[in-house]
């Protein structure tokens, strides 16, 4: 299986490199803008008005982790990456059917379990997502260095990457708590598997498959949203205790993962055609 995973990952590697460079470029500009704007609007303008270094720090505080992600531009590449990953979930399958060549013939005729193709594609997506998250984490260290190069050291507070994460929307992709991080990516894996179900249904039953897949996703989404609405909106007091909610979430994840996996397996082994 690792040979095919390696092959699939190599096919998407350039995209990963491109995204990493793009993220760095845009975020670096965003960090430079935030830092220079702090330098000009907080430090220099107040120094001109006669405030002392001590007074500026006491009034406005130090340049902390929070400022690094302050500019909305910082999150633009994160959004672009999310969009590209969503697109890749479909692209990774459909490119093997489309065009002058039909690589799916070769993949399906490999003398190994058809599920190998499935695992290779699923793991490629998950490795890409995790790599991007890891790269994003590493970049935060670089941004701290960049800020330190621009600002005088007396104005710099703690620029700890974990603070940059916990004080911004970055916590969605880089949850500071290990358990939360794992949970987020397990839910993410389930989401990718569900998208695969939609693709495999379409490849097996064409338009009818797309309808069945759409209905399946609609039912699941309705159940989850319905539950949340019932729990938090219609009830003045939440119906379940927190521990009960965790158990419900784990059970729901397990059941959905199992159903989705068994369905995908059936479609891969018996239904998809080329």
């Amino acid at each position, binding site marked *: 299986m690792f040979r095919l995973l390696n092959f699939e990952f190599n*096919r998407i590697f350039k995209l990963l490199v491109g995204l990493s460079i793009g993220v760095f470029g845009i975020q670096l500009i965003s960090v430079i803008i935030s830092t220079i704007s702090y330098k000009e609007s907080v430090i220099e303008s107040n120094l001109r008005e006669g405030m002392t270094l001590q007074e500026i720090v006491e009034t406005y505080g130090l340049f902390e982790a929070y400022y690094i992600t302050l500019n909305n531009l910082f999150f633009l590449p994160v959004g672009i990456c999310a969009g590209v990953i969503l697109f890749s979930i479909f692209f990774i399958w459909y490119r093997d059917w489309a065009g002058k060549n039909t*690589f799916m*013939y*070769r993949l399906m*005729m*490999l*003398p190994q379990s058809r599920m190998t193709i499935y695992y290779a594609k699923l793991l490629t997506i998950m490795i890409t997502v995790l790599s991007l998250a890891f790269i994003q984490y590493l970049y935060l260290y670089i941004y701290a260095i960049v800020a330190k190069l621009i600002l005088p050291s007396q104005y710099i507070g703690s620029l700890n990457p974990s603070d940059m994460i916990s004080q911004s929307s970055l916590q969605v992709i880089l949850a500071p708590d290990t358990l939360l991080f794992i949970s987020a990516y397990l839910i993410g894996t389930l989401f990718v598997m569900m998208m695969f179900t939609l693709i495999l249904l379409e490849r097996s039953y064409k338009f009818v498959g797309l309808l069945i897949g759409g209905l399946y996703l609609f039912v699941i989404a309705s159940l989850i949203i319905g539950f949340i609405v019932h729990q938090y909106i219609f009830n003045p007091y939440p119906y379940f205790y927190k521990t009960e909610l965790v158990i419900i979430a784990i059970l729901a994840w397990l059941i959905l993962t199992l159903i989705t996996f068994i369905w995908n397996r059936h479609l891969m082994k018996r239904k998809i*055609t*080329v």
Partner: protein
Amino acid sequence: MIEVKHIQKKFGRKTVLKDISFHAKEGHITCLIGINGSGKTTILKSIMNLMSVNRGEILIDGHQFTEAMYEKVAYVPDVLTMPLHMKIKDVFQFMRDFYKSWNDQRADELLTFFKLDKNERLKNLSKGNLAKANMLFGLALDVDYILLDEPFSGIDMFSREQIANVFTTDLVEGRGVILTTHEIHDIEYLIDEVVLLNNGFVVNQFNVEQMREEQGKSIVDVMREVLV
């Protein structure tokens, strides 16, 4: 021997294969002939387990299809099966990685036979050379059976000749071949067995030599009787 027994295949409400039975022996070249839409490709895909059938069974040397059979039977569809950005030598590496039956020596012989360059990217090949490369990827596997879907369609006369010639060499001889074609004139001399398809049924299966000796008819004569 590949045995196709009473297979039926429906696409929605349309039954493309109603009741198809025939067999193809090792060492013989069997040609599936029928008008467009008669289900020739569907049959090949069904044999390769690339498509499930609604009824009937297909046996290869007496066994049902398993994933390991891809080391025993190769299929060359009428489209390229590898990504276009790859070089021929990269495809060789890919095939070597995944198939135990990949035969490097045979691959090199075929490369010379078809006058192809190992360092060429697939996307730079002409249509004729693409067809040859596609065929090479199938023929270089040490398999007992080779299934070829329209190997002569849409390519120039000389490439067609070259591909036809490969059947008379030891690169193919001794193996069982099932092929579909429209260009029956060019390869009539190669074919051992014919399976004539019409309206979802096998209307005739015959040995070409025997037909010629016993009834004095060529493949086209029989086709004219049955299909026209």
